């Protein structure tokens, strides 16, 4: 037998049943679609979902049973960043123009949208994971590959910077397309 698989099986407590690929899909398939569609256009989301599923299939034995979703989001985040790096910004923009109209046509909260767009990539991702994926700081830490403590501090600081932007920005100074703000993207500050 593969010793690595022995080890991972031993590391699991009796209460944590080994995670099967079908369990992972049942838990994460729809949330992963949401995660990707929140951050990129549909065509890219489909491409990246394929990469994500491949990684999950290969590494299903490594997925912790008590953190399936954050672990899957972490994979999706890396795959999306890779895809965007590989594809280049121009092609991505062209694709988006050819894609469906942006879901956020008349944002309910333009000041907040603008402030969010003015944040750095990591701050923005922390806040999205917190408010959109509804993750706790510990889970955000899993996605970002940092400790729960560090994630709490990141979240606190991101909120502070968001408040600062909200306090200084003026109404009507509307930011860029929110969906364009992807991990590793650089069209943030406008």
């Amino acid at each position, binding site marked *: 037998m593969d010793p690595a698989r022995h080890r991972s099986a031993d590391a699991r407590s009796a209460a944590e049943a080994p995670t099967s690929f079908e369990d992972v899909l049942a838990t994460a398939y*729809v949330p992963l679609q949401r995660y990707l569609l929140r951050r990129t256009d*549909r065509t890219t989301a489909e491409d990246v979902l394929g990469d994500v599923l491949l990684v999950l299939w290969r590494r299903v034995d490594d997925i912790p049973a008590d953190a399936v979703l954050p672990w899957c989001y972490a994979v999706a985040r890396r795959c999306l960043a890779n895809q965007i790096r590989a594809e280049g910004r121009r092609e991505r923009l062209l694709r988006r123009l050819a894609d469906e109209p942006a879901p*956020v046509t008349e944002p309910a909260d333009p000041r907040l949208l603008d402030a969010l767009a003015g944040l750095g990539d990591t701050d923005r991702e922390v806040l999205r994971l917190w408010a959109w994926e509804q993750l706790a700081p510990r889970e955000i830490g899993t996605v970002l590959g940092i400790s729960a403590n560090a994630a709490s501090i990141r979240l606190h600081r991101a909120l502070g910077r968001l408040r600062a932007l909200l306090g200084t920005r003026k109404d009507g100074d509307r930011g860029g397309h929110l969906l364009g703000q992807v991990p590793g993207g650089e069209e943030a500050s406008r």
Partner: protein
Amino acid sequence: MNDSDADLRARLAALDPMPPSAVPEPLARERAEQILEAAMTESRSTRRRPLLLAAAAAAVLVAGTGAALLTGDDPAPTADPPTALELALPAPDVSASCVEFRVEYLADMPTAFAGTVTDISDAAVTFDVERWYTGGSADVVIVAKVDSTTSAVLDAVTFAAGGEYLVTASEEGVLNGCGFSGPASPELTAAFAEAFPG
């Protein structure tokens, strides 16, 4: 502006382009299935899993990986086998369904041979190998049954003494069903010839 954290979280959530109340139009199911098939095909060489795809929700079921199915030692079909190679039948799994049969998937199989069943006992089905397509050179292949009560059945294939079959097996030494093993029909023979040229 001095929102509480909870207020800010609610305001941010209101900007969510995929809010929980809105059911996202799923990414094309056909596309997802292609992705999964490709994932399984590509990963077969790195992950030791049989090739099975559940029909519902594009979920993959894994069958036939139980330790009881293994013949004990690693069959290592690509290493110099003795004159008899031991393989095993997968455990019956009624909930599993198959990926569609494709020659390129067949070509990926690490073990493939044509043989005639010479003996069926409580414990095993014995094949006299007529031709190795890949993964071995043994004269005889012994396929262990899951237990003595199960018949010599693989999916819709019932092995019968004297019958000629084309057989593939995974790296784990477990026979592949789903049309990737079966009676030596002209169609399957042609598919094997195409998958394993030369």
